């Protein structure tokens, strides 16, 4: 019996796929099993093909694999779309009474369970519960006690009344009993439960929660896939902590509203995806030049232009590293997992305020809309530290005034960081501007002051480079001659790929880099390795380029840009092939 179990429900958009999948994932999580979910979805509200996939195991799971054990198929297309992942013995649950499924062909070697989902749902109180009937059937197939489903159903429907909860429980049991009675078949699966308590969340939610934890009280944004979940998460929650969310008229406005709040002293954030980052590039330079702390999240999706809005890609790295006219000091953090989405967001706010600089959080679709289980201690709020940098108040402001008693928000300092006075601070009135300015924040074209201000802003990043920890995360065999480097959400697939590779006697050292600028100097690591492979979800190898630039070495590249994240087994094969090619 395989240690992990892979399950999916698929149908058309509008079939309730997402909420059904979420109930099953929640039930598994509440039963003390680890869960990793993924979605196949399209940018449409009705029709098409959409699926919610769940991988679960007693041990942590942090990736998807190319295998599907049980599939609830509401449409024939759901089966077609998953032929590669289905295998001999896979179980397909479907409703043969549904006109479109009447003549559906179950591929050779697979087990088709024709369950009258709609009819059983009607018996339980309404056709709308047919997906829950299917969940009950899936429980029977996977030997997963149906009581675990109950708590997830209560969470989902509790607010709508006990009657609805009971009907759903009944519907699930009808599905279970039907399979038990009608199919005399031994299934290969047994989903054991444990006493562990896990939380289940996606990357966007982790970013939103990280923001609140970090004291962010202001968010302005414009809806865009796949970043909207950040805004939806914060709405209704940030208010409980004294904050506010503004839905702006566009991204140009969103970043400027967020900038205004930051000028007023609030910890402030905006989140968007590539098309929004393009628009925000205009104000990005102003944020940096006016030395305003601001956190900007880019949840990357497939580009360029509108690209594939619901598909994975890590194509915006260059935009975040270099975007904007002129030379702009910045930080770019790249969380490498869902829990790191939380911690990197906390870190981003501290960096932004300590160095009065915009900070990008480079997240990607594959982590943003994917849910994963964690022990709640992974988000220990007591571990959150707040560092606000050089904020002056009425007592200390005179240290930063010139001989005329004027506050100097852009004072030239050794570490490059100037004092910050929040509006309302007595004797602190000052301006700032996107024009080059003097220490008072007033326009200047004085040659010496221009150079001093540019150097000062650059010096902030240099100070941070020395003061902060930019260490990459390390996995695998530290002494291996094969070095794999990646960034972003590939970490999960890669850490699992290490196990697959081990089975084939290939060992690797894996560095997962969460700091994209400033970033760790990997020269030593690259030089001491025989083969170096950089893994990323884009076509040109943007991170591979910067590794080559930094280390003055050539690296091999594994790139994926078909819109789908790396799967652990597939990635292992790709890396093995890359290493073999390098050895030839």
């Amino acid at each position, binding site marked *: 019996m395989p240690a992990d179990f892979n399950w999916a429900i698929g149908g058309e958009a509008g079939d309730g796929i997402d909420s059904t999948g979420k109930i099953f994932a929640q039930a598994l999580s509440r039963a003390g099993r680890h869960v990793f979910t993924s979605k196949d979805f399209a940018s449409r509200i009705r029709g098409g093909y959409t699926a919610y996939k769940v991988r679960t195991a007693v041990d942590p799971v942090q990736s998807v694999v190319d295998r599907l054990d049980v599939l609830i198929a509401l449409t024939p297309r759901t089966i077609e779309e998953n032929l590669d992942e289905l295998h001999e013995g896979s179980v397909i649950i479907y409703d043969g009474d549904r006109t479109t499924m009447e003549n559906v062909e179950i591929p050779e070697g697979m087990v088709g369970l024709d369950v009258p989902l709609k009819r059983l749902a009607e018996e339980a109180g309404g056709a709308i519960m047919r997906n829950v009937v299917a969940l009950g059937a899936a429980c029977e197939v996977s030997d997963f006690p149906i009581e675990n489903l109950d708590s997830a159903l209560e969470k989902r429907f509790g607010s709508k009344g006990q009657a609805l909860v009971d009907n759903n429980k009944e519907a699930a049991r009808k599905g279970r009993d039907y399979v038990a009675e009608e199919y005399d078949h031994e299934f290969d699966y047994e989903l054991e439960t444990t006493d562990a308590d896990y939380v289940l969340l996606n990357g966007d939610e982790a970013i939103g929660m990280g923001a609140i934890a970090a*004291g962010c*009280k*202001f968010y302005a944004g414009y809806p865009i896939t796949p970043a909207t979940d950040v805004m939806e998460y914060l709405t209704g929650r940030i208010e409980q902590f004294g904050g506010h969310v503004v839905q702006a*008229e566009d991204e140009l406005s969103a970043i400027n509203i967020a900038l205004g709040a930051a000028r*007023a002293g609030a910890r*402030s954030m905006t989140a968007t995806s590539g098309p929004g980052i393009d628009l925000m590039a205009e*104000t990005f330079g102003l944020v940096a030049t006016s030395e305003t702390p601001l956190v900007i999240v880019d949840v990357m999706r497939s580009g360029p232009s509108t690209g594939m809005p619901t598909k994975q890609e890590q194509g915006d790295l260059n935009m975040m590293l270099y975007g904007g006219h002129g030379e702009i000091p910045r930080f770019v953090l790249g969380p490498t997992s869902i829990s790191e989405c939380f911690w990197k967001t906390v870190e981003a706010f501290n960096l932004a305020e300590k160095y009065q600089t915009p900070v990008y959080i480079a997240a990607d679709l594959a982590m943003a809309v994917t849910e994963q289980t964690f022990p709640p201690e992974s988000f220990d709020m007591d571990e959150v530290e707040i560092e606000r940098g050089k904020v002056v108040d009425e007592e200390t402001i005179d240290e930063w005034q010139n001989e005329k008693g004027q506050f100097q928000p852009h004072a030239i300092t050794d570490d490059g960081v100037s004092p910050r006075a929040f*509006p309302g601070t007595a004797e602190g009135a000052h301006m700032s*501007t996107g024009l080059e300015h003097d220490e008072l924040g*007033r326009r200047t074209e004085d040659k010496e002051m221009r150079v001093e201000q540019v150097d000062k802003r650059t010096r902030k990043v240099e100070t941070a480079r020395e003061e902060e920890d930019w260490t990459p995360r390390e996995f695998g065999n530290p002494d291996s001659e094969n070095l794999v480097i990646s960034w972003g959400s590939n970490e999960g697939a890669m850490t699992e790929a290490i196990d697959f590779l081990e089975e084939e006697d290939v060992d690797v050292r894996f560095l997962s880099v969460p700091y994209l600028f400033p970033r760790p100097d990997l020269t030593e690591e690259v030089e001491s390795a025989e083969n170096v492979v950089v893994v990323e979800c884009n076509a040109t190898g943007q991170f591979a380029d910067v590794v080559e630039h930094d280390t003055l070495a050539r690296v091999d590249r594994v790139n994926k840009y078909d819109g789908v994240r790396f799967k652990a087994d597939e990635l292992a094969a790709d890396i093995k092939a890359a290493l073999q090619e390098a050895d030839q």
Partner: protein
Amino acid sequence: MSSDVRFTDFKSDKQPTWCPGCGDFGTMNGMMKALANTGNDPDNTFVVAGIGCSGKIGTYMRSYALHGVHGRALPVGTGVKLANPDLEVMVAGGDGDGYSIGAGHFVHAVRRNVDMTYVVMDNRIYGLTKGQASPTSREDFETSTTPEGPQQPPVNPLALALAAGATFIAQSFSTDAQRHAEIVQEAIEHDGFGFVNVFSPCVTFNDVDTYDYFRDSLVDVAEEGHDRTDYDAAKEKILDADKEYQGVIWQDEASVPYDQKHGLDEDMSEIDEGAPEGAMDLVREFY
């Protein structure tokens, strides 16, 4: 807020580089008077400026200020005010900044009705780039980029504001110092988005919409017995193509500003030293 603040306290020690005779001098003086008259002081005032001649105002006034990118001053002001409603927020810009590149933001700032003041120095020309047509330039106004005139009707900013659901619409003339200051003061005192379009003539590049033109043609609605709370009367004045008006043309007395609707009354710059109390509940929600 101290009561002995004089309007000159809002003046910085930087001399304006506007052309001698520029309308913006008067516009700015009126803003400073209005701020002082409403009990504000430089340390609780935040001025946001856009790009253009008008955008320089942040430098010449003494207050907290940000001189931003072209056309986006209103969003910045929105963020400042919502993050700290104790601040008096005044946004200033020109007709190009507000009605061309920033027109989208103007409409939505009007709708949002945040409690701040927006002063537009409308000279019906692009001054800083040396004389091109602006969105309020006349249809036949010849400029370097429109040798035969723009050949399109000018934007009527007051009508745009009214259509977007404005709660305060006024117009003033920079050289009529007392009236201009009074009108800006009323905009500050208004509970909501106080919008004042100020005729602020450009003596260098606009020889049509001059001081003389406005002096001769302006009609003060206050002298006509206009009822500013009468929507239909306001609409009639705003759509009247034959006359230029000054004064407060429309005020919605029932206006409830965005900040108030959302219960925003705290300075968001203050935060805890660690994660806020109760943050662990957020984690538990994901069980």
